[in-house]
């Protein structure tokens, strides 16, 4: 199940260099993206099992011009924890695969 995630990114363009063209003034971009995040990695088309619906909310905030370096990601803590849990599961699965490969090597 795919859920719509509103991803708000506050972007302030870097100062123009000799090569880069002038970029627009600071602005907020409201991006709607459909994301399908799955446990265990792999491409969405090849993943096994059902999708894991993780993205249940998104933050839509009004922006303000920031004096700080330009890049930021507006993500709620809830979503951050969800992707963190997915990453941990991926790491554990990868460790299990690696151990399995090593154990198979013992049998050779």
């Amino acid at each position: 199940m795919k859920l719509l995630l509103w991803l708000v990114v506050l972007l302030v363009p870097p100062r123009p260099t000799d090569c880069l063209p002038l970029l627009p003034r600071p602005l907020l971009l409201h991006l709607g993206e459909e994301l399908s995040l799955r446990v265990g990695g792999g491409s969405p088309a090849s993943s096994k099992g059902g999708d894991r619906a993780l993205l249940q909310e998104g933050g839509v905030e009004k922006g303000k011009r920031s004096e700080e370096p330009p890049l930021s990601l507006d993500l709620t803590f809830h979503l951050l924890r969800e992707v963190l849990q997915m990453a941990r599961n991926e790491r554990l699965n990868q460790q299990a695969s690696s151990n399995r490969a090593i154990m198979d090597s013992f049998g050779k």
Partner: protein
Amino acid sequence: MSVALRAQLLLFLISLSSRMGLSRYIQDIESADGLYSLLNLDQKRESEDFIFRRPLRCLDMLATDGSYTFVASRPQLACAAFILAEPSEVISLELSDVNIDCSAGDFIKMFDGWVLKGEKFPSKQDHELPLHQRYTDYCSSPATGATSRSSQNVAMIFFRLHSADSGFTLAVKKLHNPFPCNIMSQSPEGSFTMVLPHQRRNCSFSIIYPVEIQLTDLSLGSAKSNELSPKRQLLSGCSGSGDYVELLGGNGVDTSLMFPVADLCFSLSGLAQMKIGCDNSVVRLVSSGNYINRVSFQYRLLEQRELPKTQENALDNFCSVE
């Protein structure tokens, strides 16, 4: 046989036996290798060829060593990936197969830390580098901007690609950090010991969950005397002391913007605990550099029913603490 001759013969026999004796050797027990240490050379070589690979997503969190490739199927104007390692590790990032058009506004920037809602972890006060040195911009210098190493167990990459089929590959590798400072916990439960040996710096252990924290051991450098100067009396808490531990709570990742809920200036041998019902709970060790400071603590996730009740009609925008 004379006594002198016997002594000489005895010494000669002793020298012979020492050459035949077993000598102690240093056993290199690399327990961290685990099963890997049991492999022979060919098997090790075969296992080293295996690198974890998968596509990188526009919004992603990476906690595994490996190679992640992003190829834009359409313009991707706001993408970022969080990278997280174990507390005692730092992160090495390397870009390769970069196919972007910097002149068209594409960029790939690596950040030494995390940025969330404009707040940075570690904060400016806790990180050793100035803010502009924490960013590595590939477009500024492809030669030097393709690699980055974090100062703590978190890092981040931002990228914008205007054209379809543009992309890059990111290699993530974790390196051991013997004295970790500024740690983002991977889990809502666990334990940790933070040690600052004669380092004048501030280190934070951040847990992005509401937790109960139990300080099990605290060893701080002590003041030369217990007399309080008039100036010190005006200061609240431990801020007048050289070295101390403070517990922070807040709803962001920047520790300088969080609320101090408790601080400890004296070494502790018992148990001190606190429930922090905030989105982010932090143990922060402030060190003057004059002593070896150590703090050990455990933490566990607070269930919904355990969250401290917020005060009604409270004007403070503060998460609950108990």
